[in-house]
């Protein structure tokens, strides 16, 4: 028996705009008091009318470009009709028949191309909080612009699904289309999962199940994993295969790591789509699209290629640097002043990212001069690599002055002092020197450490090592 998991992903991202999709209420509602960002339009009051947000359209065009979509000159908004308390008008304004972006794709690291059917603009619903006795509604989120990106079912494992989703996440963040902050619900996944089972030479497809509203990569992966197992069990138990109308919708319980049945798809899904009469078709000029695209200064793929080709970075390092737009910007601006790009990128990806991740800092808050100054001082042998790392940490975390620290840790130019300290250390640790001479080379580190300590660190351990070896060879090894 051979089992193949088939996954299609619908990703909702909140487009980064100041205001909502169809009204001038602020779209930045996170942690604000409930129902404070409302007007007749987003509250769905009788007589109100929608007006499109230009930035949201621009963002959808940028996403279209970055994800290799055809950006349609003519698209249209439709009404998706269903009544639910979080949907104030009783219909959602979305793009059904003619979405703005069609036929896109991304390429995974394996080289596999994942086709994306479409990306369309729609409005978000209100937030509802369910209690035992009642449901609370907050309209601040109602009408916030979303882009729904619908992949074709070409993802054959949870790993592929995750890589695809991560790719979308990185790309949209990189060009500023969305912050994709999952804790704020700015990126959500609906996964469509089923299995292709080959058994005794026959191919069986299990019924498709849609798991809705997953709000982290982890829960997405786990939901796919759970569904694969559940569907296999179910198939072995009842043998039911995919048929028209037997798609189901399930929810995800994160605490139990389980999906749970919500409803049969056909039960209520008659959305009665029709063109939104309150909005004329969205007709874009070539010039408008060009303008929108030109607001993308660089696409992540171009950035990646230039890091490899122009800056000679390794693929792994380049991958790390384009993971966030801020990292890339940091590299680009420091590289203007510091030309050993490989060294620079290593410091950024190991030291700087290490510190900011450990302490939840933003790379954009880090002073570029600090890093450049430290790297230059190391190159000029003013400080040692290890003091450089410590200085960096201290400047970032304790806000100490980099120039003073470098001065304080600068390698002593008084080589006579180093020589006399080496002699002193070797004499007082005669037994250690003996061990070295017996072949225990590991003890050399201890001796170097003693010297560096006596010198208050103002010495390059590499130099010390060389000098110690010279002395030992000359005096002790006869």
């Amino acid at each position, binding site marked *: 028996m051979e089992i193949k998991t088939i996954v299609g992903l619908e990703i909702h991202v909140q487009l980064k705009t100041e205001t909502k999709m169809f009204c001038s209420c602020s779209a930045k509602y996170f942690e604000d008091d409930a129902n404070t960002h409302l007007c007749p339009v987003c509250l769905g009051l*009788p007589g109100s009318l*929608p007006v499109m947000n230009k930035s949201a359209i621009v963002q959808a065009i940028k996403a279209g470009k970055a994800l290799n979509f055809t950006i349609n000159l003519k698209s249209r908004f439709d009404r998706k009709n269903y*009544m639910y308390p979080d949907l104030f008008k009783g219909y959602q304004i979305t793009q059904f028949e003619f979405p703005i972006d069609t036929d896109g794709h991304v390429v995974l690291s394996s080289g596999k191309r994942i086709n994306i059917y479409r990306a369309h603009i729609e409005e978000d619903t209100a937030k509802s909080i369910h209690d035992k006795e009642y449901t609370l509604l907050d309209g601040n989120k109602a009408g916030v612009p979303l882009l729904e990106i619908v992949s074709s079912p070409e993802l054959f494992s949870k790993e592929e699904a995750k890589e695809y989703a991560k790719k979308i996440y990185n790309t949209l963040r990189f060009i500023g289309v969305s912050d994709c902050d999952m804790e704020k619900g700015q990126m959500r996944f609906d996964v469509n999962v089923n299995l292709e089972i080959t058994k005794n030479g026959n191919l069986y497809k299990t019924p498709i199940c849609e798991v809705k509203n997953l709000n982290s990569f982890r829960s997405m992966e786990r939901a796919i994993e759970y569904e694969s197992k559940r569907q296999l069990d179910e198939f072995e138990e009842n043998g039911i295969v995919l048929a028209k109308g037997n798609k189901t919708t399930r929810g995800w319980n994160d605490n139990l790591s389980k999906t749970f049945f919500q409803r049969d798809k056909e039960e209520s899904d008659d959305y009665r789509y029709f063109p939104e009469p309150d909005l004329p078709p969205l007709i874009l000029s070539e010039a408008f699209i060009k303008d929108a695209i030109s607001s993308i200064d660089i696409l992540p793929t171009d950035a990646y290629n230039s890091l490899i080709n122009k800056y000679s970075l390794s693929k792994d390092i380049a991958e790390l640097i384009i993971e966030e737009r801020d990292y890339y910007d940091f590299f680009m601006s420091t590289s203007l002043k510091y030309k050993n790009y490989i060294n620079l990128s290593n410091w950024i990806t190991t030291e700087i990212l290490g510190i900011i991740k450990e302490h939840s800092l933003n790379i954009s808050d880090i002073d570029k001069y600090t890093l450049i100054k430290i790297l230059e001082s190391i190159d000029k042998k003013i400080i040692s690599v290890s003091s450089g790392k410590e200085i960096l940490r201290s400047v970032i975390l304790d806000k100490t002055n980099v120039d003073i620290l470098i001065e304080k840790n600068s390698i002593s130019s008084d080589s006579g002092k180093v020589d006399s300290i080496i002699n002193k250390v070797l004499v007082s640790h005669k037994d250690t020197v003996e061990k070295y001479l017996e072949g225990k080379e590991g003890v050399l580190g201890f001796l170097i450490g003693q010297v560096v300590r006596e010198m208050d660190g103002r010495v390059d351990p590499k130099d010390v090592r060389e000098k110690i070896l010279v002395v030992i060879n000359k005096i002790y090894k006869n």
Partner: protein
Amino acid sequence: MSISSLVKDLRDKRISSEEILDTYFKKAYIENKELNCFISISEEYTRKKLANSKIESELSFIPGVIKDNINVKGTISTAGSKVLENYRSPYTATVVKNLGNFALIGKGNMDSFAFGSSTENSGFGVTKNPLDKNKVPGGSSGGVAAAVASDLVLFGIGTDTGGSVRQPAAFCGLVGLKPTYGLCSRFGLIAMGSSFDVPGIITKNVTDCSIVLNSIAGFDSNDSTSIKVAKKDYTKFPKLDNVKVGVMKFPQDGVSREVLDSFDSSIDTLKKMNVELIDIDFKYINYSLAVYYILVPAEISSNMSRYDGIRFGDHPKGGYSSISDFYKDARDKFEDEVKRRIMIGTYTLSQGYFDAYYNKATQVRNLIKMEFSDVFKDIDFLISPTTPTLPFDIGKKINDPLEMYLSDIFTVTANLIGYPAISIPNKKFGNLYSGLQIFGRPFEEDRLLSLSYLIESKLWR
């Protein structure tokens, strides 16, 4: 009394703004008991609003009525439905703002949510036709027309989705204008059929209509379907030379003797005015009503979904076993005609029917629009009767919805294609009038009003 004469009296200080308010509110309370043309009388609102007002426009202190499906902050806006019985709108429609400091006397009675042609579908009782109290005033803007016809106000703003301004204007012997779709903002009009609805004007004469249009017309950035056009002074009727008027051919069954007779006499009048008349036989216009009754209910069924009992309007109270029961209870106060239209729309939009109804009707709508724009290459205006009959008796058609729908047969086409159309009183039969409907080219209301003015001054009245 007309707007221009009251404006003159006011400016010459023969009457004060105080006196206007006193007189008109007093009349309103008395007459409304009999006519039921206002759902609410807006005395408190208006006295407060006009307390420190000065004359700033042609409409300052001029008494007017606003149909109750147009939001006015500080008044109750019921849209003629029990569902919104106590609904205080928290904002004001653009057209009402554009009217400035006029004197709002009351909110006009109407068929619930503007679904109807007689005002009998109101949740607040039928309005009587002031010309004959056994007859309907027409609808859905029946309250507005009745208030204007009985001199309780000098102008009224209604809404026209398929004739709701022109037909009651005709039934009450008044002028009713449906402007081009997009000339006047829909923002704040409680939607019925969004791609059909326009605010409209009901007045005693064409000049008053022009004065009101001057103030409500204009682009509104809150309405994506509104259009930027050069500002015109509609009171300056442009000179019309070599005018060609199309005369619509129509099937005569269902059209009353009086209407046919008066239509003939208006043709005679036009002939005497040296206007070139051209008979027009449309191929698709007979389908207008069917197209209308597919597309409008479709839009209605969606527009009415916001009445869920949660954020405004009537709220259900009991306990519910399901969300569906909650909604059904919340929406149970919808009047029967509202329920009927929602269900028709739900049906035609639902799976399996969408292509046969919605898509097909949209295509026929395109055909009709194409045919009109072809025809209007050769003519400047087009005339037809406004209604197939004179005002009918209260209660006569209320139990036969389809029969009621047929009373819109001449008016719906203008809404299908967005063209402007006006109804002016044509011929008098006892106390009642028939109406003459004139279509103009889109955004040429100035010429349409100009021709209407000419005919008005020539016609027998």
